[in-house]
């Protein structure tokens, strides 16, 4: 076992990865879901949930990923962890392409990454006790040699997420939503990962609990030098926790930038419209707030529009937008990139 871990480590160094490089490099990632119909299940179309995404996630940062429901952000998160099998592209984790790993090597590499889910009621097995839920990761990777070590690690994990160690013998249905989410976080921490995908971890929680969970995630990040991909459909939530933010629209990343810049100076019209929808907690300012109301519906990922996917709803669209798709570095201000020919000034 120890030699296997050592081999895996050497594998990383052999690929030339150093901590100065992005922890996760996503290149040309595509996840298409075939649509089947008829008696012989003929493929009649492809839902392009993720359609050519390039993204870097740097060591120790929180990258916020926002977009409307159905834009593919959850699929992107799960494709990066290979919980959904991508159709094409590369996901380099510490320099190693995850999509090329065999199933055995992939299972071993899973120790270094984890996921936290949106729905705390669906994400815990109703038939397992908290001790079993948290201990499972330890069993899979042989991280606890004795029953006593396992118990101690479970208690430690519960302590880390602010739960009483008395809870170890209880079942998930005995907990509130916030407590369940903490158990989900503890499970993610069990394998001692360096990268965690947070898939809308607070969307299903009461507003009063949301802040607690955000704070907990931030404390844990500091303590264990975690890297987060934080998925949300709400820019105001992501603003608080993210170092950088990527905005997705119908399977594509349309803008990526440092969090501050994105809020101060959005470049893509879609980002501008999302930001204009955030209410200002001051009645006078709120009354004068200018809203960009988009026309039409979100384009279908089954049959996206030619050229720029946002052009059908864009208030700045020109004929050129329908011809060729603007690459992400059309606007390139170093750290701030946007896929738009006619960016906001």
């Amino acid at each position, binding site marked *: 076992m120890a030699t296997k871990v050592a081999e895996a480590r050497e594998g990383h160094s052999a690929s030339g990865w150093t901590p100065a490089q992005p922890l996760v490099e996503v290149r040309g990632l595509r996840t298409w879901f075939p649509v089947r119909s008829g008696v012989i*299940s003929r493929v009649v179309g492809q839902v392009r949930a993720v359609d050519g995404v390039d993204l870097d996630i740097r060591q120790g940062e929180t990258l916020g990923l926002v977009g409307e429901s159905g834009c593919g952000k959850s699929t992107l998160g*799960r494709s990066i*962890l290979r*919980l959904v099998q991508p159709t094409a592209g590369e996901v380099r984790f510490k320099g190693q392409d995850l999509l090329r790993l065999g199933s055995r090597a*992939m*299972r*071993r*590499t*899973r*120790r270094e*990454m*984890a*996921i936290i*889910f*949106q*729905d705390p009621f*669906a*994400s*815990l*097995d*109703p*038939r*397992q*006790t908290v*001790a079993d839920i948290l201990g*499972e*990761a330890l069993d*899979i*990777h042989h991280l606890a040699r004795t029953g006593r070590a396992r*118990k*101690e690690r*479970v*208690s*430690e994990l*519960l*302590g880390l997420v602010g739960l*009483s*160690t*008395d809870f*170890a*013998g209880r079942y998930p*249905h005995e907990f509130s939503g916030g407590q369940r989410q903490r158990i*989900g976080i503890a*499970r993610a921490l*069990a*394998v001692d990962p360096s990268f965690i995908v947070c898939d809308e971890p607070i969307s299903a929680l009461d507003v009063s609990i949301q802040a607690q969970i955000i704070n907990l995630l931030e404390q844990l990040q500091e303590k264990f030098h975690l890297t987060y991909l934080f998925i949300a459909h709400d820019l105001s939530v992501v603003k608080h926790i993210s170092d950088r933010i990527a905005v997705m629209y119908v399977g594509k990343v349309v803008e990526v930038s440092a969090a501050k810049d994105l809020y101060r100076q959005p470049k893509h019209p879609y980002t501008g419209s999302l930001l204009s929808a955030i209410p200002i907690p001051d009645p006078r300012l709120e009354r004068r707030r200018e809203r960009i109301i988009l026309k039409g519906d979100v384009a279908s990922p089954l049959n996206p529009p030619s050229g720029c996917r946002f052009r059908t709803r864009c208030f700045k669209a020109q004929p050129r937008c329908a011809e060729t798709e603007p690459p992400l570095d059309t606007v390139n201000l170093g750290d701030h990139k946007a896929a738009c020919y006619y960016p906001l000034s």
Partner: protein
Amino acid sequence: MSNAPAIVAAQEPIRRTPVAVLELLRGHRRVAASFVLVAILFLVAVLSPVMSPHDPLAVSPDSSYLPPLTPGHVLGTDELGRDLLSRILWGARVSLPVAFVAVAVGLFGGGLIGLVSGYAGGITDLLLMRLVDALLAFPGLILAIAVVAALGPGLRNAMIAIGIVAVPVYARLVRAVVLQLKQMEFVVATRSLGATPLRLILRHLIPNLLNPIIVQVSLSAGFAILAEATLSFLGLGAQLPTPDWGQMINSGASFLNNDPWLAIVPGAAISITVYSFNLLGDSLRDALDPRLRS
């Protein structure tokens, strides 16, 4: 470590499922009542050699056609003077094993097909489900009769045939639940930890399949008893002179005009047994459904 005392608390014994079963029986009177009924039936089957007042096979032409409530023969005697009560008690030793074996055949065959089909998906799922569809295309009893005809009459073959009839029911049920569970986030979470498929199936899918399966088992046990009685009535199940409820109805049917109890008594035994199993299944389904739990 600062939270050392709390660790001691975590080492206290963990409450586990047997307690949950007791609580279920305590909290749900219908479950408890039907559970007791089924338990009594099993006791009768086990204790019938001790409980029977007469030898179920002992022929005595002098005391034939005695009506029920005759002293010494509470349920009367049949055309050969055999004590009906003894034959009913001994008949339970045929009917209840049939329920067991047939359900086991259906559960393991159908459960395996459903599990593989639902978990693997794709072409495997397609082929297995068409096979199940083919089995479903025949009415249950017709299929059972066809299988017995192919294997040859006899109790053992009847059990197998009835089990085969139950296979599609379990296959469909298990597949549907597995498809549903596969999408659940706790299953995705387990995969994200690096669990092998075997671990996922044994630790997460099967435990979560138990509720619907328990209910289906008690329902199809009732069907199995009824089907065996039908097969025996047709002469395809238990062979003479084994006391068997279906067989008893068959021979009693000839005397329906003058001595109707010859058919009514075994009929009532079947009704009570099937009703007990169905009641258990019904009440378990209600008690185990979280939406119906108060």
